[in-house]
């Protein structure tokens, strides 16, 4: 991986801001969809697709590409926005999210859209699929790396832990798991619905290498990935501490924004906050 210059870091921060704005515009336009998760994961998606991943948007099936498996498929608006900005498909298609006949299905579907590695939406089986992809890479002596994004709520699923054990057993060091630790799920805070802590200790006891980072500090995330890539005998989990709804004051930290539809005034306010980075940019035409 290259060195992350300050200039590049600044650029990624700006891309993340644009992605947040696009993701919310898409959900508002679609009239339904998930919002808290996508906003919280914007910085990580910008870092992944615009700095970390070895990929070629013009050749999405390039055999040696790094794989990004999205397990918590409901946050797909942020992945769709990222893929479009990375050049996988025309940006204007973003506004077809969830519409009849669209390639941007309500939950991501492999084959429907270039850049989507697996079908997801039903939670808890992304890590298993990623283990399969990483294992195949290992068998074929390929050098690609497999990244998986999961949510914290998904950790309630038994299937996820079956895969955690598997990756530990087969020492899948070509696999990096990124957990969106935003502390919310649909029915409330994760620690009320089904407590996950101590999460880091759980992974350690399953023979994983564990790194925690600030999911909104791009440098901290990039360093975590660099460390993960340097670990040669175990899979790594990066527990990324994120703020659900990041970037819009009235949405941050509130589990009710998991997938709540916007009222008109809320949409206007949210988009204005995202466009101006909470008022820090005064010109509407930055």
């Amino acid at each position, binding site marked *: 991986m290259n060195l992350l210059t300050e200039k590049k870091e600044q650029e990624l921060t700006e891309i993340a801001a644009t992605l947040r704005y696009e993701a919310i515009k898409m959900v508002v336009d*679609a*009239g*339904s*969809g998930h919002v808290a998760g996508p906003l919280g994961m914007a910085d990580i998606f910008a870092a992944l697709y615009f700095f970390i991943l070895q990929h070629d948007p013009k050749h999405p099936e390039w055999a040696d590409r790094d794989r990004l498996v999205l397990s918590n*498929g409901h946050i797909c608006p942020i992945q769709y926005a990222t893929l479009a900005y990375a050049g996988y498909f025309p940006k204007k298609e973003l506004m077809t999210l*969830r*519409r*009849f*006949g*669209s390639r*941007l*299905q*309500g*939950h991501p*579907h492999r084959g429907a859209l270039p850049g989507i590695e697996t*079908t*997801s*939406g*039903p*939670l*808890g089986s992304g890590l298993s699929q990623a283990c399969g992809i990483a294992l195949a890479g290992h068998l074929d002596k390929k050098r690609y790396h497999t990244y998986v994004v999961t949510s914290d*709520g*998904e950790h*309630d*699923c*038994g*299937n996820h832990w079956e895969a955690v054990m598997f990756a530990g057993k087969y020492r899948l060091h070509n696999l990096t798991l990124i957990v969106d630790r935003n502390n919310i*799920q*649909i*029915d409330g805070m994760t620690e009320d*619905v*089904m407590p996950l802590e101590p999460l880091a200790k759980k992974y350690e006891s399953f023979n994983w290498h564990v790194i925690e980072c600030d999911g909104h500090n791009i440098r901290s995330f990039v360093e975590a990935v660099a460390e993960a890539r340097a670990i040669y005998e175990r899979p790594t989990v990066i527990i990324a501490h994120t703020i659900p709804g990041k970037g819009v004051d009235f949405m941050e930290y509130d589990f009710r924004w998991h997938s709540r539809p916007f009222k008109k005034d809320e949409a206007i306010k949210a988009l204005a906050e995202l466009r101006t980075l909470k008022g820090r940019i005064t010109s509407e035409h930055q």
Partner: protein
Amino acid sequence: MLSKASKVLPNFAKGTLTMSSTRDGFGKGIVELGTKDKNIVALCADLSESTRLDDFKKNFPDRFFELGVAEQNMAAIAAGLGLSGKIPFIASYATFSPGRNYEQIRTTIAYGKSNVKIIGSHAGVSVGPDGATHQATEDIAIMRVMPGITVVVPADAEEARKATLALGSLKGPAYLRLTREKSPVFTSESSPFKIGHAEIIWEGESPSVALVACGPVVFEALLAAKDLEKEGISVIVVNCHTIKPLDEVTLLKVFKKCGALVTIEEHQRAGGLGGALAELTARFYPIPIESLGLPDRFGESGPPSDLLALFGLSSPHIISATHSVLKRKK
């Protein structure tokens, strides 16, 4: 014309009916049931509001259990509760329960004969924008072949309320299939509902085709019947809300009267209501059948009405299926 006994609201075609979803009917029913019977408990997997368990949770916090996103665990825990005198209702989306936890349901609930009620919401393509991952279109098939499980698909919110109450007093495991989208409430409080009884809701004079449906598309069949009557084609409409046990007596009588059948359901053409009725006619009284449903493909994102049209499940499609089946009659 409308069957008197069915107590279907006579103004059904005027577009003035109350709109409500079958999951809303369940939400009401489960609270009524909880009030009557202290053994009713409800389990949920991080979807309490969408499955309409929130009122039950408010009213009976000690009998509501939040499992997190863990449908397999939910099924097996419910099995244990059911074996110990409780009447557990487990609620999620049908794609996850009975979709994800099929084997746990099979072994611990069905084979283990535990008195668990499986509530599968968001069934069918009318789920809309969430797309195929969230649209259950195989659930009737997988539940109907499982030994010992009663399968009920209510046609509107009022019927879903009654079905919930009826399942509470039924001994043994059952599956209740619900929908997300609001649909016309065309049955009334006094409409009869009994598990295992198919309801004849429309009967023309010397009918030539039977339209048998389950779920909210029963309403589309009624609209079709009304239009067909204007064309001079007389039909019987059956609300076949119980897929198992199938009301063979009523259905065979209807088949003998009509001599042709159109089945309508928000499900794969294979294995659901259409499949069950094809098995029945093949065994006892073979007649031409047209089955409306998904032709071995998944749903997709879109507005519910467009999806129902895409898959040929609204009244104009029922009318053309009626024409086709009539042509095949000897």
